[in-house]
């Protein structure tokens, strides 16, 4: 297994990757939140991932980059067993806090490992409030006061509260795409996950909404471990502590974001980052 430098610069601000200040060495390494060991993933007979092993550090942002079809989304979906929902199969081990995710009930696992999708997908028949409350309500929480508190907290965390606090009863589809995506993030946070997986969360959004989502990711890592798949290398550089580069279903390289973007070990990584392919 690749060894991982578990020491991102905690001082780093969201937009200053290129400022070049050297990463000061390093506080004590937190234990990895999730560990993947030799993960193979298949769709039928097609192999989408080949023996991927990596660690996701607690309360850090891991960005997964790579060209289309390299398996980055598939890997993300292996982490909360959504891969099997689409009819795929998986080999190898994925561990959450040291426990194999195959031994955790899929429903419980997904409460602990939430997911935000590429396209905003608020439930169309529900109001903004109901969208956020859905995860709790459908799992037996009906205390109105408690729900209202959670909805407000999550909408605040998703930086959406001020924009929608007077229209919580409106349809979740009635707000803009960027707001919908933040609504989806709030919906994910409402079940109080430990890890949040994001599959190109800003690729369908305009630059302003994208900036908001990125700021949000930076805020969220204080409380959550985040894995984000992105096509946008500037985005990976801006929001993440660690970056993993996937190519043709294999993990080519993983390391501290700054190092991956300045002095990657592997030739393929450098070629991709500098735009020579992909």
């Amino acid at each position, binding site marked *: 297994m690749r060894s991982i430098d578990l020491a991102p610069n905690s001082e780093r601000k969201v937009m200053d990757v290129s400022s070049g200040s050297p990463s000061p060495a390093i506080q004590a390494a937190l234990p990895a939140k999730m560990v993947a060991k030799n993960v193979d993933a298949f769709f039928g007979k097609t192999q989408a991932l080949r023996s991927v092993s990596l660690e996701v550090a607690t309360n850090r942002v891991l960005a997964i980059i790579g060209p289309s079809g390299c398996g980055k989304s598939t890997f993300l979906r292996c982490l909360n067993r959504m891969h099997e*929902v689409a009819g795929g199969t998986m080999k190898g081990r994925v561990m959450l806090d040291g426990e194999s995710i195959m031994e955790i009930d899929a429903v419980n696992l997904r409460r602990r490992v*939430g997911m935000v999708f590429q396209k905003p997908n608020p439930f*169309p028949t529900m109001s903004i409030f109901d969208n956020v409350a859905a995860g709790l309500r*459908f*799992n037996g929480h009906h205390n109105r006061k408690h729900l209202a508190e959670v909805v407000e907290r999550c909408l605040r965390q998703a930086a959406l509260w001020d924009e929608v606090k007077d229209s919580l009863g409106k*349809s979740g*589809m009635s707000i803009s795409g960027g707001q919908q995506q933040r609504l989806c993030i709030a919906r*994910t946070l409402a*079940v109080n996950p430990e890890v949040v997986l994001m599959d190109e969360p800003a690729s369908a959004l305009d630059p302003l909404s994208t900036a908001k989502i990125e700021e949000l990711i930076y805020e969220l890592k204080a409380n959550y471990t985040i894995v984000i798949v992105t096509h946008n290398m500037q985005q990976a550089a801006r929001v993440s502590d660690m970056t993993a580069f996937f190519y043709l279903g294999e993990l080519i390289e993983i390391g501290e974001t700054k190092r991956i973007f300045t002095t990657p070990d592997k030739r393929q990584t450098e070629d991709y980052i500098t735009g020579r392919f992909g």
Partner: protein
Amino acid sequence: MTTNEKLYFFWRKTKNNAMLLFSLACLLIAVTPLVLIFSYTLIQGISALNLDFFIQMPKPVGETGGGMANAIVGTGILIGLGALFGLPVGIMAGIYLAEYGDNPFAATTRFLADVLSGIPSIVVGVVAYIIVVLPMKHFSALAGGVALAILMIPTVTRTTEEMIRLVPQSYREAGLAIGIPRWKTTLRIILPTALKGITTGILLAIARAAGETAPLLFTALGNRFWSTAIDQPIGSLTVFIYDYSKAPFEDWIRQAWGAAFVLIALIFLLSVIFRIVTRSRYAEH
């Protein structure tokens, strides 16, 4: 433009207009019977209507006047029973076919449902006669309800399936990804999203069932007296129309027209109510 180009332009325009006229003509041919039926029923039926028609019972043979209160209520009860038995089965079967229907058993069911929706309703009447009337040893509203339910199930099943298939996969995944169990995701997220389309299927099924006569002749039989008991024969508008329209009395024929009009009006009313009840709380986007 040269003359040739002008000619060609004119030729294309002519073809275009010819096609438009042809499709318009077909539309008129399709709509004409509908308009004729509706307007003729309206003209003939409305003269038979008065308050008595809705609140009185049928008069004995030979007396004029009276109404068909029992038949109106009977039709309501029969449709209600049919919906009670048929809708849950149809909707749940549709959910199965859409969500778990990737196997030979489901493919067979799907095919059979399509075949069943084309089966003559009188056959369904005989089936209900055998499975309900014979064991009970008499005709009953219950048997009529079962017959109508069997008629409704294929339509409801197939529409539900199609409508649920139209719901994007992303909503399913969104539900599962926040730890909602699959069955709850289906019932609380997917089903409401597809509800509008499913409603249309339910309405079609109910409208068809409400207009059926043949299966009721074997099952609910008909009843000239007031009855709301589901284990007794019950009157219905369609059987009433059937009986009265072949009677030799002018007053009965007039009343049959009235019943036909009331039946159409009832289905119309039902459609409107259904649309309002299941209307999305939010405007379309």
